[in-house]
Every structure is written in C-alpha cells, then in structure tokens.
C-alpha cells in the first residue's frame, strides 16, 4: 500500500491531536495500517502542537522535512512555519483565521500578512486549500468544531485513502451526543470547502 504522510499543526486548544487520532482510529477500523505521533506536555500552555499521521505500509511514526503528502494547518502562521514539511507535491490545507502569539503583543515579532503567506505557499506546493475554519465551525453551531472542519477538508482533498463515511463513523463513536450533530455538520462543511478551494 502506498504510504501517505500527513502533518497537522496548530496551537494548543485547537484540537489537532484529536483530529489526528480520529484519522488513526478510522484507519484501524478500515484495516488500513496507520501510526500517529503526538507531542504532549505543552498543548495547554499556548505552544505549537504538531501531530503526524502516517498511513500505509511505513512504520515510522513521524514525518521528516520535505516529506509530507498533506499539511493541515489550523492557524495560518503555523501553516507557514511548517512549510518546511512540504515538497512540490504536497497538498496544503489551511485555516485562515489568525491566532497571534503573545510575543506579538509584547513586540517580540510581527505577524505575517495572511494573503502574502497564502501566495507564498500556493507558489511552492501542488495545491493549497484555504478556508475560514472558525467561521465554518461557528456556522455548524460549535466554535470548538474547527478540528472537524479541518478533518472534513482532509478527507475531501482525497490525500488519504479514507472516505467520508468511514471517518463519520469514527467521529460518531468518539463524540458526545450533544456535539455530534454540530461536529458532523462541521465535517461536511470542511469536505465542501476542500472541493471549491
């Protein structure tokens, strides 16, 4: 089976650890080999959270620089920071809602212009899907469902060999009833956004 290497980047609290775990669980349920890598510890302290998902026959749990087939960025400046994971064939999916780090507030750096950042990414990879994930999450009725939007966009982009139904089943299994409808809605919004993007 062909190996697909996916990198998720985001900021603590955005839910990318859960998103990558759901991809892993959906793969196991579908009989597709998968290994997921997480870095814990700083997630609740506003730091960067990177998770890697390797689907297929490879057994290494992490993705090296230049080797991602898909980069899923939950925050635009973090997508740009993780661009080193990409090569000319990478599909990049990014949320465009900025979440400036506190270092910007205390004058230790400036936040990049988002349009310029998107142009820069677009010029270097196979395709860029950009979407306002937070807005779609709000529209789905749960601002915390950004991770479901991003997951939907990943599945819609067809970078990994998982169909919508398989992931929805996994989401249904691990979501509290109260959030299920909004999570599935957010997921669908992500799928559609990846098609027009």
């Amino acid at each position: 089976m062909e190996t697909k290497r996916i990198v998720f980047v985001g900021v603590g609290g955005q839910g990318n650890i859960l998103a990558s775990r759901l991809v892993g669980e959906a793969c196991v349920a579908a009989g597709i080999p998968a290994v997921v890598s997480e870095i814990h510890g700083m997630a609740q302290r506003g730091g960067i959270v990177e998770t890697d998902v390797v689907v297929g026959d490879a057994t290494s749990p992490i993705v090296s620089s230049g080797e991602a087939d898909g980069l899923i960025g939950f925050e635009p400046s973090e997508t740009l920071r993780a661009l080193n994971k990409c090569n000319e064939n990478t599909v990049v999916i990014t949320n465009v809602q900025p979440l400036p780090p506190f270092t910007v507030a205390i004058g230790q750096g400036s936040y990049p212009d988002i349009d310029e950042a998107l142009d820069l990414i677009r010029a270097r990879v196979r395709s860029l899907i950009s979407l306002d994930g937070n807005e779609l999450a709000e529209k789905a009725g749960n601002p915390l469902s950004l991770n479901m939007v991003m997951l939907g966009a990943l599945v819609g982009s067809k970078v990994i060999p998982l169909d919508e139904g398989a992931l929805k089943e996994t989401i249904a299994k691990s979501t509290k009833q109260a959030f299920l409808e909004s999570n599935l809605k957010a997921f669908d919004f992500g799928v559609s956004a990846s098609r027009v993007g």
Partner: protein
Amino acid sequence: MHKLLEDSPGKEMLLLGNEAIARGAIEAGIGLASCYPGTPSSEIPDTFFTLYQEAGFYFEYSTNEKVALEVAAGAAVSGVRSIVTMKHVGMNVASDALMTMAYLGVNAGMVVINADDPYLFSSQNEQDNRYYARLSGLPMIEPVNAQEMKDMTIAAFDISEQLKLPVILRTTTRLNHLRGAVKFGPKREIKAKGFFKKDPFHYVAIPAVSRKLHKLLLEKYNQAWELSEDSEYNQIIGNGPWGIVTNGVSMNYVQDAVKDLGIGEKVTILRLGFSHPMPERMIEKFLSSVENVLVVEELEPVMENEIRSIAQSEGIGIPIKGKGDGLFPRLYEYDPGMVRKTIASYFGVSDATPVMVDMSEVPELPGRPPNLCAGCPHRAMYYAIKQVYGPEAIYPSDIGCYTLGVLPPLSMADIVICMGGSVGSSCGFTAATDQKVVAFIGDSTFFHAGIPALVNAVHNNHDFTLVILDNGTTAMTGHQPHPGVDTTPMGVDTKTLSIESLVRGLGVEHVEVVNPLQVKKAIAAARAAKEFEGISVIISKELCPLFARAIKKAKKARPFYVNQDKCKKHMDCINLLACPAMYIENGRTMIDESLCIGCTVCAQICPENAITPLKK
C-alpha cells in the same frame, strides 16, 4: 468497563504507546503499580489511575521516583508483580534503590519503565539511560512500536521472574507518544497480595551479604545473556552484505529507508530489542556475514562501541560506523529522512528523497513559546517578588510550569538544575555570594526533592527566601495529585499533608501563606520575607486555573476589559505581566475576553484603574 480492562483477546485498538504499556501490565496481572509522573511517561500511571480500582491492583502516585521504585520493590520481594514508571531523569533519583535492588533481586516480576527524551521535548537534559542497564547490571529491553510496548511489558515480567531480577523497559518520547494498532492478548489473573518470607542474609545489604549478592548478580547476568541470545526481540533480518544495527524507534526508520531505497536484498538488519546484555554470539554471527556495518541508534554510541569491542575480540576487522564521520549525530532525535539519507550515503546508493520547498522567502515568524496561562497564579507571584527584590536578586527555579517564568518579560528563573535544585543551590548562592536569593519551587516538586534541601537550609543557617508555588496539583505533567492534594473528590482515600505545617515543622521561623492574586498582600509578604534574616518561606497558594476548571472548582468571574478612555498607555499590564489574554491592536491594549478568566491581577496593577470587569 474501562476499554483497557476488556477480556477480549484478539481485539485490535489504536492505543497510545503509554496505554499499550498499561494494557501489557494488566495482561501480565500486576498487583502493584507506582510512579512519579514525568513527560513522556505520565500517561502510563494516569491510565492506571483511571482503572486500578476496577481492575483490583494497588496503585499510587509516589512522592518521587526513588520512593516509587522502593514501593515496587517491596511488592516484588513479597511475590507480587509490580511495575514502576518514570522519565529518564527520574531514574537518576531512583538509581540509589535500583543499584542495590539488582543485588537483592525479586520473587515476582518487577518492571521498571524508563522513558528517555531525545531532543528534550520536555526535559532538562538528554541523557541516554541505556547506561543504567550497564551500571546496574540489569536486563534492558526496547520495543519498537505500540504492539511491542504491550507485548514486551509482558515479556519483561517473564524475564524478570526467570532471572529473579528487576527488568528495565526503555522507551523514548516518540514511542510513548505514538498511537498504533495493538492486538489484545489474554489477561492473567491479578495477584495483589503476597507474603514476605524473611531471609535477612539475602535481603539485608550489609557488606558481607552484598559481597555474596554481587557474585550472584554476575551469575544472573550470564543467564540474562543466554536469554538475550534466544530472545525473539533480537533478530537478524535479511542476508545481504550491508549490515545495519538498530534499536527502538530507529528500527522503523531503518525499515522504511530500506524499503524506500529498494535495498532489501542488499542489507542484513540486526535489531536489538533485548539490548542488555547484548547477544554476543548473535552479533558475532551477524558480523561474520556482512561486509560493513552502520549502527543506527539515537543518543550515545552504546551499541556501536560494544559491537566494535565484540568485533575486536573476535578478530573481525570490517568497518563499523555510527556516530561522527559525517554519519549520525549524538545529539537530539533521528527522523526517517535523516536515516534514509545516511544509509544511502554510507552504502553508496542513490536516494530519491523529495526536496523540501524553498523556504528562503518565508518571513521571520513570531515565536510561539509555551507560556504561563491567562490567570496563572505563578505570574502574579513573580510580579510581586520582582517588585520587591528587583531584577538583581538571584532567582533559582525548579522543574514545573513555573520554569516558563524564564521568558521575558517575567525573566524570573536564573538557574534550573533538577527537581529540588532551586533550594539546594540557593544554599550555595547565599554561602558564596552577597547577592539576595529568592528560590521558587512547585508544590509537587517540594514534596519530591525540596524537603531535604530545606532541612539543609534551616540547619546550616542559610539566608534566603523560598517561594513554594502551591497550585494544588502537579500541573506540568497533567494534573496528577501529590501529598498536599485532597484526593477524596477523585474517589481515592489518601491523607492530605499541609505544606505550611511541614515547613514550620522543619524549623522555618518565618512562614507566610498568601494568595498571589491579591497583589498588595503578596507584595507585603515579599517585603516581610526580605526583611527577615535567615530562611523565610512564602507559600503562594492558589489553584491552577486549568486544574480548577477540570475539577469544577473554578471561581465564576467575569472577564475584564480595558477602558480606552481611562487607559494612558503605561502598558504595565502588557510589559510586566505578559498575560496571553492581552494583546495590542492599533496601539491600544486589549483583552481577549475568551481567554481572560478574571483573575484581576492586571486590574490591580493598572495605575489608571482602567481595567474593569466586562459588563454583562
């Protein structure tokens, strides 16, 4: 029923590496588990904590790793299978007990889980604990994936019982924190109670006994060596002329690289999973079958040196390389691309690794270091101390969230060595300098290793202030309880120790407990401590807001906002507190109401009283 307690052999589940170890321990029928939490090992005990009562074994968060290892030892000599978990630097603390437990041995399986942290994702150093196996003479095994983390935990108990020795299972961060498919096996019945049969001339490590025991350990070492020769976790894979030796997570990188480079026919891989003692005969066989060898191991050249020594004693002269010579570094962790490139260049094959995009035009991005949370009481205490002691005082700090105080603008950590190191080093600073010294230590860290150092400070008349940052939990590693935490709400019956009574009991004459969120009172406490000659202790007591939210004890408070009509842009709030809820927009200070928890500290220090609660 907890998902990890299911008696469903053959069931497959995606598990975190640490959960796989916990499941392995359950399948092995452990009767006792102990630990001190520490990244990347913490989810093992945290998993035990969620299920031990249902499972029927004994579990505790111990005060430190040495105590934890001794607790496990007591069970193991009494015939109860025990497991103890710790991060690599925890092994330093536990090592005193470990070294002699290797002499005493065990009567039921005892497994020491040791989690190394290459690249220092969350640690103060990058030590390679494979040396502890060499130092103690104990067997060490190293899994390569989630399935093996479960299976080898069980194997470790069997090896331990065959040899009557504790066995060290070594992981690295990438293994602890990967998720992979794990197939469940059958569960052995839990035996939670044993019986300690007295045998003082075996268990009392006085010189006459230990001379005998050291000899016994060397005999067991030879038996372990035989087990290693036959272990299913030591494997020679393939029969090509190019030799590759590897262990742990690197095994995955090697396998993927060999596949990507299409050199499966050309290589022979020697995978060492029972890595101490090394299977010398197997290694000799491997060395005789290949033309040259590349050793792929993170951190120190442990296998490389030992294999070279075996080659020398067998008169085998083939090149054996690993570290240096443009090959692998001794620093940080490896990754699949690095291993692929190095294998390609060492064996002279072409490498089709994709090329990273051009990053030259990517603008410099603002840093996003982890930060003390909005409303964190540590920030408030740092503010108060700095107001009184100024930037000139020496601020020894310790291991925990509060170490993040090193970042500007707080800049409130000048030296961090190890757990408890703030208090001990302060004794040295006061003896060897005339500078003012204020040490910071967290509550859990104080219990772990701060107490003996504080005894030292009192006894030897040192003159400094110790601030115990008591946020009611072990925050950094994931909110585990400690001896000062009332665990009844968690359904656990433990006694709660008062840090204040403890400190007074140690003979500290100036002790003050203060809520750091009350800025004036905190500053007054700092002043009083500064004026006091001798050792003074301030206990800065306020719950970690993340923990408070988790246990539903968070105070209901409205978020604050900056009244722009009143704000005269002193920017004290931003420049002195650097709370992540604050930001600047068009030159104006703003508060993100979704992050602000209403701790009121910024409002208390604003010279214009411009920060007030948001109206409903």
